[in-house]
């Protein structure tokens, strides 16, 4: 048993506006569940003093690239789950674009087994929609479901053929799992490096137009309406994309969406010095798009925040911009970044942020997490909001350090992470 004393405990609101409270109480953990939440609990067991600290339900990430199997020089299940634990995440969903691709039950089982054996947090698996993510043949979704996948996605890729996209959605809809799409029309994105806009013109880099994303979201919403399935839009990034989701929701369609910390906070301006840590898909967009992402999150059009943690090694980023890999490393930095930039700058309440990185994604996955209540999983992140945290290549737990926040000091340090009743990180 573990007793967390005197922390400011997150209490979710029942209301739709998601504004919860923080109250000073103790939490008693028994095994892997929360046993009791009350003031002044007395118990003769291991005690964690959380005086002056905030206590959150562990964060849940719908969009993580663990790179295992096959690209373990970038990250693996051991390092990736420890990076997660350091960032306060207790559940992460592994994307299937590994090598081999997660398009069969044995790879699903490999990930689940390895995560269970050596992982510092829980790993849920997302299976590929099409074999090898090629967008040609439907993968064995039924088999993978038996192995325990929670959703399907061709993330990193996008099924270009409308017919195959339609059939894959139809087939997946048999199983009542979310279909997560990365929306990109390749004929428009081409060899694009950054957002198509002022910055691409100035830097002479080829652009990825907003239209490449919007057209595909538009198509997939129509397909999902036709099929009647749950469509989830990954890493939404443009003003019009958000407008499309808003309209779909108003129509009552089963469409959800996520946004990354970097699309909430950064714009194409960050690319001005050819820093390859800003190279990501979808690209960092304009200030208008960024504002729309924030508004979409605040008004509920966007359901939650997901990291799209995409580690890449130094040798894949330390090169010419055109040759560098796309992706931003995010698990360790996300909470501090979001707290510093959004909560401290009064863009949202702390409880709203917690709702969007813990409660809402848990509800989406229908898992027993995301709330601090009796009977819920003992997945907990304790933060010292006054403490500063500096991310350096030396102190990153991830195998990679490809983040624009490298060498920057932020506020909001996770000091303890508990997963399934076990302390998995102590800062």
């Amino acid at each position, binding site marked *: 048993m573990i007793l967390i004393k005197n922390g400011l405990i997150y209490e979710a609101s029942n209301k739709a506006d998601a504004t919860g409270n923080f109250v000073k109480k103790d939490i008693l953990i028994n095994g892997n569940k929360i046993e009791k939440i009350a003031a002044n609990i007395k118990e003769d067991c291991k005690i964690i003093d959380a005086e002056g600290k905030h206590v959150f339900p562990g964060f849940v990430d719908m969009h993580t690239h663990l790179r295992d199997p096959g690209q373990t020089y970038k990250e693996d299940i051991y390092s990736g789950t420890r990076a997660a634990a350091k960032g306060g995440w207790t559940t992460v969903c592994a994307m299937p674009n590994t090598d081999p691709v997660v398009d069969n039950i044995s790879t699903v089982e490999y990930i689940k087994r390895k995560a269970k054996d050596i992982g510092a947090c829980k790993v849920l698996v997302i299976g590929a929609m099409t074999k090898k993510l090629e967008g040609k043949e439907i993968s064995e979704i039924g088999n993978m479901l038996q192995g325990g996948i929670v959703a399907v996605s061709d993330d990193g890729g996008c099924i270009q053929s409308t017919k195959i996209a339609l059939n894959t959605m139809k087939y997946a809809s048999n199983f009542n799992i979310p279909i997560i799409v990365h929306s990109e029309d390749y004929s428009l994105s081409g060899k694009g490096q950054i957002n*198509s*806009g*002022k910055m*691409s*013109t*100035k*830097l*002479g*880099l080829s*652009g990825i137009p907003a239209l490449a994303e919007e057209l595909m979201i538009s198509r997939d919403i129509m397909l999902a309406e036709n099929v009647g399935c749950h469509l989830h839009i990954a890493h939404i990034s443009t003003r019009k994309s958000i407008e499309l989701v808003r309209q779909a929701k108003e129509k009552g369609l089963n469409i959800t969406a996520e946004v990354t910390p970097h699309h909430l906070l950064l714009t194409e301006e960050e690319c001005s*010095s*050819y820093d390859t840590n800003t190279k990501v898909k979808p690209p960092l967009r304009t200030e208008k798009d960024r504002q729309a992402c924030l508004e979409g999150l605040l008004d509920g059009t966007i359901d939650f925040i997901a990291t799209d943690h995409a580690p890449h090694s130094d*040798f894949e980023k*330390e*090169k*010419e*911009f*055109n*040759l560098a890999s796309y992706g931003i490393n995010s698990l360790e930095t996300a909470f501090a970044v979001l707290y510093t930039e959004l909560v401290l700058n009064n863009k949202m309440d702390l409880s709203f942020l917690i709702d969007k990185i813990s409660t809402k994604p848990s509800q989406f996955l229908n898992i027993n997490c995301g709330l601090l209540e009796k009977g819920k999983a003992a997945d907990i992140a304790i933060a010292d909001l006054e403490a500063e945290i500096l991310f350096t290549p030396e102190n990153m737990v991830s195998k990679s350090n490809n983040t624009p926040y490298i060498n920057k000091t932020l506020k909001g340090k996770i000091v303890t992470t508990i997963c399934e009743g076990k302390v998995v990180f102590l800062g």
Partner: protein
Amino acid sequence: MENSHNFIGRNLFDLDDWSADEIQAVLDATKVMKEVNQRDYKKLPILRGKTVCTLFFENSTRTLMSFELAADRLSADLVRFSANVSSLHKGESLQDTVYTVDAMGIDLYIIRHSYPGSPQLVHKYTGKPVLNAGDGPHAHPTQALLDMFSIWERTGTLKGLKVTIVGDVAHSRVVRSNLIGLKKMGANVTICGPKTLMPGYMQEVYGCKVEYDLKTALKNADAVMGLRMQLERQSDGLFPSLEEYTKLFTLSEETMRYAKKDALILHPGPMNRGVEILPGIADSDRSLILEQVTNGVAVRMALLFLILGGKL
């Protein structure tokens, strides 16, 4: 000649980091170098003992020759590294290549590369001054300086001049550097070409005028620059045929009538005669096209002199 502005150790990634005063100082120094190049004995001993390295990751004949001749005429030691970009995809990284070359003791780099931002990387890896000889469609500042010199030498000023640049703006590094440089020197630039070859936000980013009709664009121009039009843009689906392009955008005696009577003609080369420019214009008295090549050597000598801090 005094090295009055502090150019020593400076990079030339593009002209946005250089002030109008500094650009003027380069033009002034170019004039001196041009005079040297007209002598019987075209050599100055001022960079003796300095080592200049050309890193060319993209095919180039004239720019490479021009830089190498400039270094030779100032008595610098010159080494050349040239590689095909495709070999970079598998072989040694730019970082390793540059570390290797730098270990041989280089004082200044001149780089051409098909990927934007590469000159910044060379400076990051070596700490040495870097001259950008063209990085993808991004920038070609020495070409812009020689273009500006060529016009300035004839007109005595760039202030208030109308300069019209016509052609494939999207794929042109020359146009971007010229837009920055000419604007700093007070010229008004109009760019013209088909919409499919015009990047977005040109007016917002560069403060230039954008026209899609050649005659409107040429109206009252003091100087007109044609850009190379490549056939491969046709297969990229950006325009239907060279014939139609020529009808709409070629610099001919007829279309040049809309410009000022003695309007100067420039082209960064290599030219596609009969496509973006007709021979009657390219070879006319007001054409500066060969003069640009002559001035290119002098501009590059001036830059090497200013940055490596030689004394005259």
